């Protein structure tokens, strides 16, 4: 397949077209997409996938711009998948993330793709996982996946990334109570942004709130410690600590096999999900063709048979097809 070669060569347009393919809702494209991903999985790169999530207004994109600038200056290649939540009633969306990633979007060592979330998987878009495989094969050192909202922590952490970080703003410690469990469980790194100007003292207070919150979390010997970091995206401070922490966690997790285990789990989950999707698709097709549901439910309404008999009959019917 020619597309695979072009992706591996890092051709920008080919990478972009491949991502379109894996995001497509067209049946033909889905088959093509599966073929493409199978081939790419045989040629894995060395990317580290880092997830960034956090409530609106904490400066996620600004942080990524700032941290990203730091990384590309160090000659890393950086792929960014930004899931934009601004879906509207009509289904269209405004993808504005790049207005906050001005400098890195110009850099030849970045690839930045925005995707409308369409409300699927609680903010993770269809094809995000596949897109990260494409960027991995294309030779990007880091792949950042950015979503909005703390609600996606679990999905993102367990399905998509090697490291999951939560970006929060000064003063968010108060909200911690309500979301503590999810956070302490899934996030590897807590990044307290806006550690600048008037907000500095508030930011360090928030950091210590988080530190004490994660101290309750039961440490196990073989996982890397969770970290709380203070940064200022605007002043570009604290960035070296972020990359250091990421690298530490990766190397520690690699040493104790946690890294591979996590990826293996994600892979299993993915297979399960795909199987589920295919079966569901097939069943739906059968249900459409079969037509016995409406007949039998009428019989139930008319009091001719019991509801459970009808369900039994329909499932039998579908399984025999």
């Amino acid at each position, binding site marked *: 397949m020619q597309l695979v070669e072009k992706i591996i060569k890092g051709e920008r*347009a080919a990478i972009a077209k491949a*991502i379109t393919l894996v995001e497509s809702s067209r049946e033909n494209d889905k088959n093509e997409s599966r073929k493409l991903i199978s081939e790419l999985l045989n040629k894995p790169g060395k990317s580290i996938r880092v997830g960034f999530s956090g409530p609106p207004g904490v400066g996620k994109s600004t942080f990524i711009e700032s941290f990203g600038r730091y990384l590309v200056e160090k000659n890393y290649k950086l792929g960014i998948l930004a899931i934009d939540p601004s879906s509207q009633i009509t289904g*269209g969306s405004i993808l504005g993330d790049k207005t906050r990633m001005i400098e890195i979007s110009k850099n030849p060592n970045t690839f930045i793709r925005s995707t409308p979330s369409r409300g699927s998987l609680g903010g993770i878009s269809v094809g995000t996982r596949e897109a990260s495989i494409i960027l991995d094969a294309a030779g990007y050192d880091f792949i950042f996946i950015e979503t909005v909202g703390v609600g996606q922590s679990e999905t993102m952490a367990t399905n998509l990334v090697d490291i999951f970080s939560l970006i929060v703003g000064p003063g968010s410690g108060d909200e911690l109570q309500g979301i503590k469990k999810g956070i302490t469980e899934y996030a590897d790194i807590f990044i307290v942004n806006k550690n600048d100007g008037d907000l500095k003292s508030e930011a360090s207070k928030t950091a210590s709130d988080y530190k004490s919150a994660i101290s309750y979390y039961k440490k196990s010997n073989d996982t890397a410690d969770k970290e709380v970091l203070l940064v200022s995206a605007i002043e570009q401070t604290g960035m070296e600590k972020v990359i250091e922490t990421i690298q530490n966690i990766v190397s520690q997790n690699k040493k104790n096999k946690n890294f591979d285990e996590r990826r293996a789990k994600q892979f299993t989950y993915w297979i399960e999900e795909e199987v589920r999707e295919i079966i569901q698709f097939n069943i739906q097709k059968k249900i459409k063709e079969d037509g016995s549901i409406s007949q039998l439910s009428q019989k139930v309404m008319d009091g001719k048979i019991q509801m459970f008999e009808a369900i039994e009959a329909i499932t039998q019917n579908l399984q025999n097809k």
Partner: protein
Amino acid sequence: MKTKNSDNYTKWQKSFERETKIDLNEASSETDEGIEIKPVYTKADIENLSFVDNDSLPGQLPYTRGPKASMYTNRPWTIRQYAGFSTAEESNDFYKKNLKSGQKGLSVAFDLPTHRGYDSDDDLVMGDVGKAGVAIDTVEDMKILFNDIPLDQMSVSMTMNGAVLPVLSSFIVAGEEQNVNKNLLSGTIQNDILKEFMVRNTYIYPPDPSMKIVADIIEFTSKEMPKFNSISISGYHMQEAGADNVLELAYTLADGMEYVRAALSKGLDIDDFAPRLSFFFAIGTDFFMEIAKLRAARTLWYKIMKDFGAKNEKSLILRTHCQTSGVSLTEKDPYNNIIRTSYEALSAILGGTQSLHTNSFDEAIALPTDESARIARNTQLILQNETGVTNTVDPLAGSYFIESLTDELSKKAWEVIEEIESLGGMTKAVKAGVPKLKIEESATKKQAKVDSGSRVVVGVNKFKNPKEPKVDVRVIDNNRVRDDQIKKINDIKASRDQKAVDESLAKLVTAAKEDSNLLARSIDAIKNRATVGEVSKALEQVYGRHFATSLSVSGVYGKHFEGDEDFMNVTKKVNIFEEENGRRPRVLVVKMGQDGHDRGAKIVATSFADMGFDVDMGPLFQSPKDVAKDAIENDVHAIGVSTLAAGHKTLVPELMKSLKEIDPKSKIIVFVGGVIPEQDYNFLYENNISAIFGPGSNIIESAEKVIDLISDKIHEHN
């Protein structure tokens, strides 16, 4: 209590309802500001007013009726036409011609590179030099600009906010080298940075250091330049960006309050600087509303300044310049613009402005020609000399309608001012992006009203001219201007004392770090022939360059079209497209070069999204190369380029080239919208542009055309 009045009113109401067959309660209309306009006003409407004092006279507090007792009966308003283009030599010629023909004051338009603090030889600005104003790189350009114009006699207004330090310095040094001391210079520097963050985007530094610069200028001029207005607090650009009159009025005054506080923080006494604060409003087509706005502005400013503790009467009085609305001008049937401008000018006069710019009818398309500039100027000369409007001060005072409207507008604006104050003042509000978003929402509503036909624009959505007239426009060869400027910069750099330049720039940097007055230091650097770009970059080392984050409204446009057939038609096409292609049509909307007017781009983005498109917004000030990278990475179907500053002839071909460089087989189509003279259409089509949408284009029709073009392109390749 039964009075003769109420008897009369009952009688009138009956007649009204009989004639119109409409219940009086339902006969009111509502303005963009949400103000109810009744079919008739009576004495009852001007009893118990909150802000207006019915017994006050012109020149008396709260100054609703005018800043002076005699107003135009003594001296008419100043005809002050805003102009500038190309090189200093050409602009100087143009100014001298205008002054000979009856214009009284000068108002300088600078090009975008100058605004943004770039020299003409900077790679970032290749499409913008000399386009939307005159290019000024050094004090030598400034001297040429005022050649044979004695600066001790001519009042000069300068629209400059971003690069305000080097440009004001150049003006001061140009004066000095004409042997005019700075204390004799009269005029105004716009120096209003807050509205740049809201709408116009020609800022350089982040909000906090930008406010420091504003305060430095107020401090310096209050001590050294007693005849010079240190700031022109401007609502103009807000209305141009789509703000209604309440937003324009309230945000402008809230900006004013913030500047007062900035100056006070320098330890100045309020009466030392407040008399030199001036204002600048837009006058649109809502005739009575605009009159009321100027009267309300003076009324509210009086209250504000009194609350600040000002004692000098001059501190309490709002003086303003006005300009007729550029956004009300249409590309279609352009001679209608002469008529629109005339009514707007009359509004400004009846509202009591101190000076006025009337737009040329061709300004929706290009910079004015000598001929169109003459018609614009004559609009004011006729008002002054033929109509008798100068004979009576505030002739509409006592009108039940005008007084009630003035009060109503004041009340509404005051609520908005209080809202901003509750956020901690305008600097904080601007950082949070609140006013920008409110203005965009208002702009989108206005656009939807025009596109849906609920607002009539003659010659655009109704009464169209079957035979559109051809209009000749002024053409700027920006490559030639750029070459000229680069040569001048090189000559100066070769002949100046480089050591003196470096030293004065280093002192400027130190001043910025030490927080001392920057204007004094930048005057030294400019005197030594440092360039505008060098001064700006020196400060950038300390402050950084500001990049705006951009929020978007959604759903505002679509709401106006519930059930609208054309609108539904487009959304249906979008849905079919999605089924066929596995995704929605995806469009990248961008601005390129230094043109920061993003109202059009924002409206297109939000309305296309409301119709079901996926719309990528590019950051401001992108190069064609950046745009191409963005478009290809996001695999968009189309790029929409919004251009209002005439850079399209350079930037669009450059974009096409960059697309092909990254992807030789690129199928991305490119369309262009904004201010594009018809003369350029062929040039653009030859460069493979798929569609051009001029001002006043209906957005629904444009969206339909775009989706059709995208579909054609896809089929052509399958």
